[in-house]
């Protein structure tokens, strides 16, 4: 080995007072050189200090590798070493532990350099049974890094681990636990998942072993959750939050968080313990926690973990606990305003890590307006902080804050700062966050400003994020378009600025919207015509232009500057520069022109007839040219007009652009810009218009034939022949099983809300129609239909029509219902109206279900079981076993069962986790008693639902309805 050199390279941290300044908020990287430093080109020296157990051979080998001048030399040296090790392992002489360790370590080094290793596993496993700590340690390291699912070996490895776990030597136990945690394979979970919980909660286990055991269990629970048994130990794990040793608490908190995410109910007791612990930490003086204080911040890692754990639960119900938690959160927010106790960046990072986690909890609870607004103000300060990291995080965190109804307005006040960030931040990842936040804070009031800023940013935006910005602009422009000319302008601008990034979804969508809205068609035609004048325009613009002029070119043909011939020449001038799909689209636009403008027929026929079309090498283009030419020659004007008629409106559906953005961002990453929070703003908009609400009610006529409803309407809508083919929307149907009020249907134009009440076999539904647009709906009418079978089971009557529903207005109707006998199907609400010249047909399945006619029945345990036995015939019982679709929360389940209509009977079932209910279904002809039992299995995330009623069809239907709710 070479002579002693005290320093042999740049130190990662610069120690000593001299550079503590630089090591502060603005780290400067010091190359710590001394006189003995050897230049970068000379031979690398081995470090002389090899701690603990020097392996000279290993150091020599590593040094050799580093001195290799080329990749080939390195490979040669490695192969030489591999041959050497192989011969040693195969040799007759038994190797001593030290050599074995050294060679295994060399193999490990070679593997970590990126080379394959196919031997040495057996020797590594042998090291596990060594009594020498370092030999054992290297054996475990090799196995952790190079684990191989060779079954024989796994058995041997597990055996070694088993021995060490049983050794009662804490250092050996820790090594074994680290190995299980590092490998985390199924085989290991099978072998040890039962043993580790008992190590964890045993009274005599050393603290360090508890820590390893807790995180080992966490890893196994992540990789094979089904193998980790829940049981008596879980209650004792929660109490580790009270442990004196903060390291144990730190490790246990992570474990409890993971387990609580899986089955929150089992770990509910952790809430109060976590709050108590957190409260002690945030109020402690910074020196109290000794070595757990990090740069004057008390236990930052533990604080963050506790705040994370609390995010598994809703705000505590207990008032005292809740106020204690609020106090903690306030203290954390207050500390952010205090002057820093150190200038080092570690101090502010640790402090702010806790602060950001506290803000996440505040947002998660979403219940304390003052805290939310304080959080927002704090983040607002960070938006202008000199640390890029803080600006990044503030933008990110504010994005989630924007979706809370309490803080949405507060977030909006920072719009100028965010726009400024978009313009001035030097780091693309920060700008990306700014775009996300602008998207999240956008609403009707600032849409124009935000869209304009995003568009102008797009001109210089990084290529990596352009497509996403394009999608966002397209969505916002559509969502908040009050004036559709603005929408058309925006999308055309998008194509102009970033045509390459405008995906098919975006330009399809603009065409769909233009076709569905006749108030914007003329404008769209004029605008695309003007845009196409540009000498170089993007192919996507040619596509949109071709389609729109082909459909609506007639709307601007009156102007001599855009006469049919001019339009055609303009489009055709782009033809040769375009790809095949665009040319095909243009050919279709030409044939549409022949229908719209007979005067250019000859010109277009000449084009179609040219060799470049009729004999085009591309089959699709050739076929179109031939067919369109023939069609224009043979067909009469009437036939042409029929064949080439204007496209019918597209059915309304979720924007495909939004779906694309969701795919791109991954589920859950997209802030919801259209969910309930807007209710606050939205409802105030509606309430302004409630004065104009028409209250029309057609009272139920029980004696009238149910068929009169629909037949009457056939007369009213003689042109409604298409209504039968409209798809019936039942998206929200199942949400109404356990509740009576809410929004049943919503598209871009119309929102339909329901309020319903039921008594015995009668029901009344108030239907609210809200016009979401700014323009009138004309000849609005609605009627209810039901299948022939259903008609004999329930009676209803509702016909209504309004000549006009003003933009933004809401009207109300009342529907009365009587249940004659039990039924399964549901009636359909049909709506028709004219909007912007096109007839809109909407059909919505009305949530009239059998369980709505429940009357709850209270009964004693004895009565219940007596009746339960009486209903014991096999056809009377229906059972369903199903996987939980939602988190298994007791309170939510209770609310749902009550919402279903039965009485919830406490203390009837011997198992308190189960739910038992009873009720009577009222129909005109008969009453049907019903008993139900729901057994949750939190561990398997499954439910078993059993229903017994005197009537088979009722049991069946109720089981279907309730079985989808959990």
């Amino acid at each position, binding site marked *: 080995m070479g002579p002693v050199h005290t320093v042999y390279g740049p130190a990662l941290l610069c120690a000593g007072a001299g550079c503590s300044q630089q090591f502060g908020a603005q780290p400067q990287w010091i190359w710590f050189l001394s006189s003995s430093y050897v230049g970068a080109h000379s031979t690398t020296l081995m470090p002389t200090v090899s701690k603990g157990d020097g392996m000279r051979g290993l150091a020599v080998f*590593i040094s050799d590798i580093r001195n290799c001048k080329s990749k080939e030399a390195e490979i040669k040296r490695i192969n030489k070493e591999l041959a050497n090790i192989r011969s040693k392992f195969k040799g007759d002489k038994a190797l001593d532990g030290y050599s074995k360790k050294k060679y295994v370590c060399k193999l490990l080094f070679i593997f970590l350099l990126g080379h394959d290793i196919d031997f040495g596993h057996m020797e590594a496993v042998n090291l596990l049974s060594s009594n020498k700590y370092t030999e054992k340690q290297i054996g475990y390291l090799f196995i952790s890094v190079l684990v191989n699912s060779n079954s024989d070996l796994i058995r041997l490895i597990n055996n070694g681990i088993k021995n060490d776990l049983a050794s009662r030597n804490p250092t050996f136990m820790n090594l074994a636990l680290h190995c299980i945690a590092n490998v985390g394979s199924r085989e290991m979970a099978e072998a040890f998942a039962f043993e580790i919980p008992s190590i964890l909660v045993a009274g005599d286990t050393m603290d*360090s072993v508890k820590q390893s055991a807790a995180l080992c269990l966490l890893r196994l629970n992540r990789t094979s959750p089904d193998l980790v048994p829940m049981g008596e130990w879980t209650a004792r794990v929660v109490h580790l939050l009270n442990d004196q040793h903060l390291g144990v608490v730190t490790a246990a908190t992570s474990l409890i968080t993971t387990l609580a995410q899986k089955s929150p109910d089992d770990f509910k007791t952790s809430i109060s313990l976590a709050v108590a612990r957190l409260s002690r930490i945030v109020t402690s003086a910074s020196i109290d926690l000794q070595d757990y204080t990090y740069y004057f911040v008390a236990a930052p890692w533990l604080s963050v973990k506790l705040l994370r754990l609390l995010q598994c639960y809703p705000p505590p119900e207990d008032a005292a606990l809740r106020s204690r938690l609020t106090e903690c959160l306030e203290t954390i927010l207050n500390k952010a305003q205090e002057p820093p106790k150190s200038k080092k960046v570690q101090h502010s990072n640790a402090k702010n890590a806790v602060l950001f986690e506290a803000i996440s909890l505040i947002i998660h609870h979403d219940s304390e307006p003052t805290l939310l607004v304080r959080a927002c103000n704090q983040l607002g300060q960070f938006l202008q902080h000199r640390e*890029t990291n803080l600006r990044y995080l503030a933008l990110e965190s504010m994005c989630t804050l924007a979706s809370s109804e309490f803080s949405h307005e507060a977030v909006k006040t920072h719009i100028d700062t965010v726009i400024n960030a978009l313009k001035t931040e030097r780091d693309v990842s920060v700008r990306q966050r700014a775009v996300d936040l602008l998207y999240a804070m956008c609403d009707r009031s600032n849409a124009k400003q935000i869209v304009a800023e995003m568009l102008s940013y797009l001109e210089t935006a990084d290529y990596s994020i352009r497509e996403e910005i394009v999608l966002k602009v397209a969505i916002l422009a559509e969502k908040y378009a009050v004036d559709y000319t603005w929408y058309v302008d925006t999308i055309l601008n998008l194509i102009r600025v970033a045509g390459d990034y405008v995906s098919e979804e975006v330009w399809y969508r603009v065409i769909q919207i233009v076709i569905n809205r006749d108030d914007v068609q003329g404008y769209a035609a004029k605008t695309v015509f003007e845009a196409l004048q540009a000498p170089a325009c993007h192919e996507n613009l040619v596509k949109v232009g071709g389609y729109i002029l082909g459909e609506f070119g007639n709307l601007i043909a009156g102007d001599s500057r855009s006469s049919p011939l001019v339009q055609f020449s303009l489009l055709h001038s782009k033809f040769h520069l375009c790809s095949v799909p665009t040319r095909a689209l243009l050919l279709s636009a030409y044939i549409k022109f022949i229908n719209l403008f007979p005067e250019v027929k000859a010109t277009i026929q000449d084009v179609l007839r040219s060799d470049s079309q009729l004999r085009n090498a591309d089959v699709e283009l050739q076929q179109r040219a031939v067919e369109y030419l023939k069609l224009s020659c043979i067909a009469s004007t009437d036939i042409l007009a029929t064949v080439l008629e204007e496209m019918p409106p597209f059915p309304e559906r979720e924007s495909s652009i939004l779906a694309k953005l969701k795919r791109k961002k991954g589920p859950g990453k997209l802030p919801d810009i259209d969910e309930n929070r807007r209710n606050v703003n939205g409802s105030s908009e509606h309430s302004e218009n409630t004065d104009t609400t028409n209250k029309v009610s057609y009272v139920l006529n029980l004696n009238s034939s149910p068929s009169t409803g629909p037949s009457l309407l056939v007369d009213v809508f003689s042109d409604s022949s298409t209504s039968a083919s409209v798809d019936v929307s039942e998206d929200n149907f199942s949400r109404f099983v356990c509740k009576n009020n809410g929004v049943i249907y919503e598209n871009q134009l119309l929102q339909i809300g329901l309020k319903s009440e039921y008594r015995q076999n009668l029901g009344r539904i108030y239907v609210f129609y809200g016009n979401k647009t700014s323009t009138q709906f004309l000849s609005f009418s609605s009627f209810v239909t039901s299948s022939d079978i259903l008609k004999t089971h329930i009676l209803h009557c509702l016909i209504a029509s309004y000549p006009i529903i003003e933009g933004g207005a809401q009207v109300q109707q009342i529907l009365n219902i009587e249940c004659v006998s039990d039924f399964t199907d549901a009636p359909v609400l049909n709506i028709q109206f004219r909007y912007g010249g096109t007839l809109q047909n909407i059909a919505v399945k009305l949530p009239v279900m059998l369980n709505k006619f429940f009357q709850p029945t209270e009964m004693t345990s004895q009565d219940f079981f007596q009746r339960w036995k009486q209903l014991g015939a096999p056809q009377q019982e229906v059972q369903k076993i199903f996987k939980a679709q939602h988190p298994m929360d007791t309170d939510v389940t209770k609310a749902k069962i009550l919402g279903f209509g039965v009485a919830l009977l406490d203390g009837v079932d011997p198992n308190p986790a189960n739910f038992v209910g009873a009720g009577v279904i009222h129909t005109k002809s008969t009453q049907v008693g019903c008993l139900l039992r729901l057994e949750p299995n939190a561990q398997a995330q499954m439910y078993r639902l059993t229903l017994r009623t005197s009537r088979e069809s009722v049991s069946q239907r109720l089981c279907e309805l309730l079985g989808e709710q959990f």
Partner: protein
Amino acid sequence: MQFMLLFSRQGKLRLQKWYVPLSDKERKKISRDLVQTILARKPKMCSFLEWRDLKIVYKRYASLYFCCAVEDQDNELITLEIIHRYVELLDKYFGSVCELDIIFNFEKAYFILDEFLLGGEAQETSKKNVLKAIEQADLLIGCIFFTYLLEKSCKLFIHYKTAADLLSVKQM
């Protein structure tokens, strides 16, 4: 945390720790992509970035980059300080740690990491306790104990208050 990578300015991986099961091929691809992405960033840029569906937190210390991949709901700043605490642990253990320490004593770097982080979560955040665990282990080898002591004094890297401390540990 899903994984931690240490790599040099030349893009050479110095340490890799994976807390999620991935094939060798995937690991190599991820390391390659990520090293490239991070080396392309400028010094003053933010320490966080979105990468695939993960959040990357990284920091450069002299010639080495430390880089962690955490999940969406994880805390970036505390991850940044996890990196720093790890560097401090290495520094305390090796005494003015530099890249070469980690190359030549890579196994020690792994052992220290295991005492600090397990299963991707912080196990023990007290610097004293982590180093105690590591040094206890070092001291379990009695035979080279004195050479070790000599080397220690060479580097002026003594954490023990008295020799009695050492001896009492040795007897364990």
